[in-house]
């Protein structure tokens, strides 16, 4: 104990001096260069706030789906991703993702602790302060690991979860973000991903699949009744997600004007088409349209349109949304046959949706909108690029996520013991209860 304590004091002292240096270093933001545009900056800050809100939205979306005894533990997975990944981001995540490129694979540590990241616009977004771009991107890094938590809901140790998301973000999210948005090898190859079909949804969705397979199903899965304990909470989360997604997609224009407008419109159409399609298919298939289905369909539509949002037109968005609603519906309804327990369908919605949308961008991108044509407009190469992107990101995510999970499992164990699972995470891990109603 003694030793340990000393160690952490030393670490702490080191950290303090590092922060102290950065406190002096970083405010070198001479505003001599280009003044940011007020409208663009307003739009990006609003978008950053909207994307921030999505993570608690996800907390409610997921929280309503689990059993009452796990509501706080589930909410906490999403909620804690906000502060933990935000700190990771300002310290090392941002520079790994967007810092000066190292051979197309990763950003250098030059911008460690936001060193040199100031208020002068960067080449990433020439009309807004560099820090505005940084914080906006940070909100994406936050929500992505939180999405995975749906796969192992109701049975993962909180301590392991914290370690997992730190490793996952550093070793999966940051590199992949660099490959595509930080000027890395996939960007050079010509892969397009407007707002994170690959970077956000495929990484998290495929990792969710790996996680569900490795951690195993919940005790009593497919035998006991495990209906969502609070669907109005899930609907509230859905509403917040849809609302926030305008910041996610239209904000990815990194400016306010034509492109943000187009992405806003296609996002809404994709969501609408996903929802209506889901309800129609469900009604035909099961005989009853459900509110839970409508909520799921809208998230499927939103996830799917994400990579295409700023590349395609309104009618293409309609087609992509229809594909989202029908294919994700099939994915979810095939799940029970496949044996793994992706409890809240992180793979079925985000993995599948991200892949469809990335292909959709390759099919329907139109140069009239954002300079790049897809297959439908005569450029088959773009579809090939997209497929390469999907393959690279999916394989990388799956393999690395499996390794990370195995390592965490070996070190501290991934899964709670049976007693905890039976009693519920809220009481045993967190010592609190969701409701005294």
């Amino acid at each position: 104990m003694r030793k340990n304590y000393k160690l952490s004091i030393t670490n702490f002292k080191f950290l303090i001096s590092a922060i102290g240096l950065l406190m002096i270093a970083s405010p070198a933001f001479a505003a001599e260069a280009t003044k940011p545009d007020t409208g663009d900056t307003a739009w990006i800050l609003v978008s950053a706030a909207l994307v921030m809100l999505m993570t608690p939205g996800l907390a409610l979306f997921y929280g309503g789906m689990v059993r009452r005894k796990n509501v706080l533990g589930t909410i906490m997975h999403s909620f804690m991703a906000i502060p933990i990944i935000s700190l990771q981001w300002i310290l090392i995540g941002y520079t790994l993702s967007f810092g000066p490129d190292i051979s197309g694979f990763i950003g250098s540590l030059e911008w460690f602790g936001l060193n040199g990241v100031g208020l002068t616009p960067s080449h990433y977004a020439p009309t807004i302060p560099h820090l505005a771009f940084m914080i906006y991107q940070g909100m994406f890094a936050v929500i992505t690991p939180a999405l995975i938590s749906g796969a192992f809901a109701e049975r993962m140790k909180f301590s392991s979860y914290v370690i997992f998301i730190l490793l996952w973000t550093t070793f999966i999210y940051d590199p992949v973000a660099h490959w595509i948005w930080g000027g890395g090898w996939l960007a050079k190859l010509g892969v397009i991903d407007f707002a994170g079909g690959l970077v956000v949804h495929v990484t998290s969705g495929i990792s969710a699949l790996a996680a569900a397979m490795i951690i195993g199903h919940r005790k009593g899965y497919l035998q006991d009744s495990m209906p969502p304990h609070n669907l109005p909470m899930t609907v509230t989360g859905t509403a917040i997600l849809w609302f926030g997604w305008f910041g996610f997609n239209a904000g990815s224009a990194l400016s306010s004007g034509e492109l943000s407008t187009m992405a806003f419109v296609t996002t809404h159409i994709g969501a609408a088409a996903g929802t209506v399609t889901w309800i129609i298919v469900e009604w035909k298939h099961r005989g009853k349209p459900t509110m839970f289905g409508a909520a799921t369909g809208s998230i499927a539509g939103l996830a799917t349109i994400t990579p295409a949002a700023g590349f395609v037109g309104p009618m293409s968005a309609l087609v992509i949304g229809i594909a989202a609603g029908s294919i994700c519906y099939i994915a979810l309804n095939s799940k029970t046959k496949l044996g793994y327990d992706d409890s809240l369908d992180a793979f079925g919605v985000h993995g599948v949706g991200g892949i469809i949308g990335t292909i959709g961008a390759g099919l329907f991108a139109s140069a009239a909108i954002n300079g790049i044509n897809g297959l439908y407009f005569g450029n088959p190469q773009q579809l090939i690029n997209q497929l390469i992107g999907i393959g690279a990101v999916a394989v990388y995510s799956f393999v690395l996520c499996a390794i990370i999970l195995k390592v965490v499992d070996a070190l501290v164990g991934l899964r709670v013991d049976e007693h905890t699972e039976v009693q519920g995470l809220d009481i045993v891990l967190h010592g609190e209860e969701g409701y005294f109603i």
Partner: protein
Amino acid sequence: MKMVTAIIKHFRFDDVRKALTDIGIVGMTAIEVKGFGRQKGHMEVYRGVEYEVRFLPKVKIEVAIPDEQLDKVLDVILKSAKTGDIGDGKIFIYDLQDVIRIRTGERGEEAI
């Protein structure tokens, strides 16, 4: 004294209460319960996973009465709770050894 407990359908609850007060019953206690019986439940599907809901919400009414009121009370419950459909519920009758009113300490029939 008897304790009459009736498991009934939710939407008959108000009628049963009214019918009982009409014959002069001034006290009763109600509890939300889940019932399982001949009335079958239904399936609910959540995102492709099917769950059978076997226990249906019912209300249990408990009425303590003097022995001589038993027939009238049973009659009234039977009439007001009945819809004729399966799942109308059941009445269970227990012997009650004693009743005490907490406020006054009265015991027996006076306490009811």
